[in-house]
């Protein structure tokens, strides 16, 4: 088993508030990891520290054999770390196809030098939109999309960067049962292609179905990590979720 992501003793404070307290996490290449925890437990902060949106104060993050600390977010994206945002953040003034052109040009093109012609670029945009079922709306603006479509666009844009590791931050919150299934199928298909995925989610049925391993974060500390069935029966996890 090769370790793709190595989070070592990462701590992040906001003033006096300790958001992450010595978090330790390893993710193997090709793995599907579920990351759960109550609201405010530091899940998004951890994602932000891994992706470079925030810089951790101590500890370090290693990805694909490289130390990521101090690296800006776009450099981490270039190295194969990609994320979707909890609240979709599309580029409003661009069509869906243009939204995908951004990572294609700035990450894939910069990394590989492929995608030279405008035709290649167009074809790749359409392929990605087709994958999430938004091909018909390629020329639409993000404001024309429904919630679930917006989340699919968010995932497609994260995918466009051709990542080794994809972090999906609550990409199913507020969606109906069938919509959750849609996104889940999509993520499983991506994983089959060899992409490592960290899924952050509150919908337990989805998390249990998806994850090969489950990690639990409570008040900035990791309290459990292991096979999903064992972790959800762990008394500490039950206490954190249901109270005493």
């Amino acid at each position, binding site marked *: 088993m090769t370790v793709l992501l190595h989070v070592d003793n990462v701590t992040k404070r906001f003033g006096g508030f300790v958001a992450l307290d010595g978090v330790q996490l390893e993710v193997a290449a090709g793995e599907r990891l579920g990351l759960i925890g109550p609201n405010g437990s530091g899940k998004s902060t951890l994602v932000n520290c891994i*992706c*470079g*949106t925030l810089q951790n104060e101590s500890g370090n993050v290693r990805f694909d054999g490289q130390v990521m600390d101090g690296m*800006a*977010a*776009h*450099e981490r*994206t*270039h190295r194969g770390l*990609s*994320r979707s*945002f909890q609240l979709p*953040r*599309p*580029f*409003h*003034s*661009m069509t869906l196809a*243009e939204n995908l*052109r*951004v*990572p294609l*040009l*700035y*990450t894939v093109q*910069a990394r590989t030098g492929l995608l030279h012609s405008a035709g290649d670029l167009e074809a790749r945009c359409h392929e990605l939109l087709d994958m999430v079922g938004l091909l018909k709306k390629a020329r639409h603006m993000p404001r024309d999309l429904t919630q679930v479509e917006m989340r699919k666009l968010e995932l497609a*844009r*994260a995918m*466009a*960067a051709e990542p080794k590791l994809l972090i999906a931050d609550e990409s199913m919150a507020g969606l109906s049962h069938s919509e959750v299934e849609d996104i889940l199928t999509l993520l499983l298909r991506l994983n089959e292609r060899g992409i490592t995925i960290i899924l952050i989610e509150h919908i337990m049925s989805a998390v249990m179905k998806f994850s090969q391993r489950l990690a639990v974060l409570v008040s900035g500390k990791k309290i459990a990590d292991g096979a999903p069935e064992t972790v959800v029966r762990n008394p500490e996890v039950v206490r954190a979720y249901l109270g005493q």
Partner: protein
Amino acid sequence: MVKFSLIAIVVAAALLLLAHWIHVDYLYFASYTILQFIVLATAWNILGGYCGYVNFGSAAFFALGAYASVFMHKAYPVPVPVLIVIGGLVSGIVGLGMGYLTLRLRGSFFAIATLALAVVLQTLIVNWDYVGGSRGAYIIRPENITILGFQINYIEYLFGLMLLLAVIALITARTIERSQLGLGFATIRDDELAAEACGVPTLRTKLIATAISGAFMGMAGAPFPYYIGYLQPASAFGLEYAVNSIAMPMIGGTTSWVGPLVGAVLLGGAQQYATVTISSAVNLLIVGLMLVAFVIIAPNGLVGLVQDRLRARRRS
């Protein structure tokens, strides 16, 4: 791009010939001001419109270009086209430095920082005796200039240079708009966090924008001392430059290169007309009233208004 450049050059040449045929000195004076505003508005729009960073310090970059010319005029006189290049370099470098110091600020904080830059630079110039200090500096403009054996009226020469500069600024803006850089600028305007996550090096991209924007403002200012003959800090750092270079793209539309052009011609033309018929003091009043009107009627500028109409017609 080649096609557009050719069209732009042909249009500019036609304008030059037309102006030469009419041959009224006042026409050159008035058109020079409008062309200068086309350059300023286009330059402002590269940072303000494409990237969404509002710069209140346009006058500072413009004045830097003008004062670089005054300095060179006293230290080592060179032809005006060279002065334009020097003015562009000086303002571009200051733009880069300002960007590095202030681009971590967003929204109104960035705008306030640019305003502060203008105040600081004006204070420096007022206290720098070599370029005239608060007294100002005189530059005696020659009557004529001889190029390739042709004798050309100096004001016509300046008009021609500014026309060329406007063409270059518009070609640059349009090229950026359709390039990867333009896409990067737009991601910064829309959402910087998402831009970083997509791999856009936002800080570097913004620095490119401030440098290009500052350089064009400096280039617009470089021939100014020759045009006006007497340069003083209060006129070079005047409020009208800061206000106009914001108002013109706003009125024309900030998302495309056409906007600043339309805005500058419309607003600049109206100001010139008012200067002759009413008084030069109503200039800023006109800007203010038009800005208020457009913010209410067409918040996305004239270009936005036309685009919305076209889109609505296509749907129905």
